[in-house]
Structure formats: structure tokens, C-alpha cells
């Protein structure tokens, strides 16, 4: 609770530090507009036109439904990865044999291109939610898993010994010695896992479903409707930026104050 309060208290200062980010975003938009003037409307619509399209799209209830569908798939997929990735990663980290056994599996999962998984998933599950969710899980699970595994494997033996010498009860060992260290590994892994989930969900939808934002993107492409495509991309990017910078980053800052 104290923690939550501290996050809220430091939030304005954090926002203030965002001016630099704002400046670079505006610069990006300026270059975008330049690109539009060089290559023309069909290839690269102007930022203004894109934002106008975006505005009209956001009035449309159907678009929100598509966003909902995508959000649902991404969160179920990421939620599963986060849950099982964390738990299995911890288990694998605590047992040397398990961590050795899991290494080749992780290598396969990380190394296999997501597109190959999509093809397999389409064969196994057909066109629908399962295919998308499966691909998301397969792509973001190993990231979380490796984070949890690393966190557990790198626990400081000296600190464990210290805890032993003071006869820490099990809950102190966990919350005061293991957890903060493991969390400092697992949390960044969650952040990258989430980013991965968001990218993969769009790709999987584009190839394997007839609804969701990815499918909308496919339709825009087939109609050569560049403004709509760019508007969709804008939605995807801003939502990711919102989650990352407004929600996750402030938490991370507070949690990692002790880091050098």
C-alpha cells in the first residue's frame, strides 16, 4: 500500500521527465510529414490525414469491438505465459537438473520463427481464437520463463548463508531474500513478454482470423487503404506505449530504487 502511494507521489516528476520523449515523438511526426510530401498520399498518407481517419474510426463501435477482440486474445495469451512462464521458470531455476533439461526446449521455442508456429497452429486449431492465443503463448512464454529461470539461478549464495545464520523463517527467506532479486529479473521479462504478445497477436490475426485488429489490417491492405492501415498501426503503437510508459515504467522505477 505504501508502495502504491509512493508510485503515485513520484508520478508527476516522472511525467515531467517525459518532455524529451515528447520532443522526439514530434520530430518523428515531422519526418513522417516530409516523407508524405516526397512519396505522395498513396504510399505514405500525411500524419494529419492519418489522425483524421483514426478519429472517425474511433467513433465507430465496430472498430472498438475489433480492438476488444484483439485485447482479449493478447491478454489471455500473455496471462497464460506470465503465469506458467513464471512458475515453471522458478521451478526450473531451483532445481539444477530441471534447468539443464529445459535449456534445449527454450532454445527451440526462442529460435522457431513465430510464422512457423502460426502455420502449425492453423493446421491444429483451424481459424480462430485458439490459433492466435496459442501463437502468443508460444512466443512470449519462453521470454518470461528465461527471466524467471535467470532470476532464480543467480540468487546470491552469500545472502542465503546470511539468512541461514539468522535463522530466517521461510516467509522471510522468500519475501526478503529471494523475491526482490527474482522480481528484478522477472519484471523486465514480463515487460518484453507483453511487447512480444502484442506484436504476435496482430500477426497471427492477420494470417489466421477474420476478426480483430490484425484482420482489419489485412482488409485495409487488400483495399490499398493506406490511411486506415496507418491509423490501425497508430492505435497499436499508442496502446503499447501507454501500457509501457504510463503503467509499467513507474512501477519498475520504484521497485528498482535499490539498484546501483
Amino acid at each position: 500500500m505504501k508502495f502504491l502511494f509512493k508510485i503515485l507521489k513520484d508520478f508527476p516528476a516522472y511525467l515531467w521527465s517525459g518532455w524529451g520523449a515528447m520532443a522526439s515523438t514530434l520530430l518523428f511526426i515531422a519526418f513522417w510529414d516530409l516523407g508524405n510530401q516526397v512519396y505522395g498520399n498513396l504510399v505514405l498518407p500525411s500524419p494529419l490525414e492519418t489522425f483524421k481517419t483514426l478519429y472517425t474510426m474511433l467513433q465507430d463501435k465496430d472498430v472498438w469491438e475489433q480492438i476488444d477482440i484483439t485485447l482479449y486474445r493478447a491478454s489471455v495469451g500473455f496471462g497464460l505465459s506470465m503465469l506458467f512462464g513464471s512458475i515453471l521458470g522458478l521451478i526450473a531455476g531451483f532445481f539444477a537438473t530441471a534447468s539443464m533439461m529445459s535449456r534445449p526446449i527454450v532454445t527451440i521455442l526462442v529460435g522457431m520463427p513465430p510464422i512457423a508456429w502460426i502455420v502449425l497452429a492453423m493446421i491444429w486449431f483451424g481459424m480462430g481464437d485458439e490459433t492466435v492465443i496459442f501463437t502468443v503463448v508460444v512466443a512470449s512464454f519462453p521470454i518470461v520463463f528465461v527471466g524467471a529461470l535467470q532470476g532464480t539461478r543467480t540468487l546470491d549464495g552469500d545472502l542465503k548463508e546470511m539468512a541461514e545464520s539468522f535463522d530466517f523463517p521461510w516467509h522471510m527467506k522468500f519475501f526478503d531474500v529471494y523475491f526482490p532479486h527474482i522480481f528484478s529479473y522477472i519484471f523486465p521479462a514480463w515487460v518484453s513478454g507483453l511487447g512480444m504478445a502484442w506484436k504476435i497477436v496482430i500477426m497471427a490475426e492477420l494470417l489466421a482470423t477474420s476478426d480483430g485488429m490484425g484482420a482489419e489490417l489485412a482488409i485495409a491492405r487488400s483495399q490499398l487503404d493506406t490511411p486506415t492501415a496507418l491509423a490501425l498501426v497508430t492505435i497499436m503503437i499508442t496502446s503499447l506505449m501507454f501500457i509501457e510508459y504510463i503503467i509499467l515504467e513507474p512501477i519498475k522505477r520504484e521497485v528498482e530504487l535499490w539498484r546501483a
Partner: protein
Amino acid sequence: MESLEVKNLTHHFGFTEILQNINFTLKKGEVLSVVGPSGGGKTTLLHLCAGLLDVEEGSIQNSFKSTAFAFQEGRLLPWKNVIDNIAVGLLAKGEKKDKALKKSQKIALKFGLEEEDFEKYPKDLSGGMKQRVNFARALVTKPSLLFLDEPFSALDIGLKKELYAHLLDSCKENEMSILFITHDLMEAIRLSDKVLLLKADPGHIVKTFEYDTPNDKREENFIYEQSAKILQDKEIIDTFELNTLELT
């Protein structure tokens, strides 16, 4: 009667023999120090006595009710501030949180830490400050046996003096026994009833020095005299290889 008895203790790391046939007894209320060259196995001996390493050969019998350990390298929890770090030992013993924090603040002040340091994380502390936090964390639990691994090595002489006095006070108050390691012979003479001289390769005890004057009644003069005397001791010269210095 509580005591720590070490009998025929031998220890190996891999194939190297680190400690060879160590024997000593530490009785209730006694202060025993171990001096010896760096890398001679002092820390290893202390870890064995504290049960942090498993005894392979020989035996260690520890009948003290409670023990606490101040480590050579601090070992503070990096995600806890000064006061929370000091309090962990108390909390582990089941003390109430606010009481533990109060006691920790009190001892922190006694250890020369200032209120503005209380909220700092270990990364923002100096070496000597970390050492004091580590020491305070062990002492605040008022153990019946306290293990100290070079607790004063990074402190200035003023602080050392204060902490000596403080340590002797709480030693008397709680009838605490201390087993401690130091490189400073004068410090050993000032504080301890017995000084064990541990020679290296492999570590074995070559001599025991005993001081009968109660440690809170030792005059500076006594300490200087004894230090001068001990530096002439043949075994000390041998163990620390003091003579080779003069030859070159």
C-alpha cells in the same frame, strides 16, 4: 554452562587442507580472538563454528542458546535500507516490527550512523558504513555467542574506540561470549581473554596467549606493553614472517 567446544577439527576445500587439527574451548562470557595471516583459514574456521559449513573431520559442540554472525564482506540485503537491514535479525527472532525498528534505530545511532543515512540503500553507503550495519545487525539481537569476522577493519580509530566500549558494555550486560577474527594484534589484546594464533598452510593453532586482567579494566599502558611484548614473540614473528622484512 553454555560453551563452544572444538575438537580435532580438520577441513578441506577440494584437495587442499585448509584447517588442521584445531582444538579450543570458548566458555560463557569469554572473548576469544583468532589472529593469523590473510588466507590462513580464519573465516573458514568461524563459518564452521557457526554451522555455515559442514564439519568433515573432528567435532564442534555448540551449546550456546543463540548466535549471530557479522560477516567479513557485509552481506546486506541490497533492497533494504539501513534500518530495515539492521532489523532483519530481530524480525527473524519474532520481534514485533515497530519494536524491532526502534531498537535498530537506537543501535544505529550508537554505531555512529546518522539519521539521514537511515533510509539509504547499501549501494549508497561507504565501506565502513556497510561494515557497521552488518555489525549492528548481529549485535542488536543480543546473542549469547557473537561471531565477528574482522568487524573493525574499515573503521577509523575514533569509531573503533567507541565500538570497543559499546561491545564490552553489551558483553557485560548480557553475559555475551565472543569469537572474533582480527588482523590487529592490539585490538585482540584490548578485547580478548584468549588470543589464538593461527598459522597458515594448513591453518593450525601454534600458540594461545591469555590475558587475565578483565577487559574493561585494561589501561592503555597495559595494551601497549603487551603489544610490544607480543611482537617480539618468536611464534608471532614466524607466523607473520616479520623477520624477512628486516633482512631485505
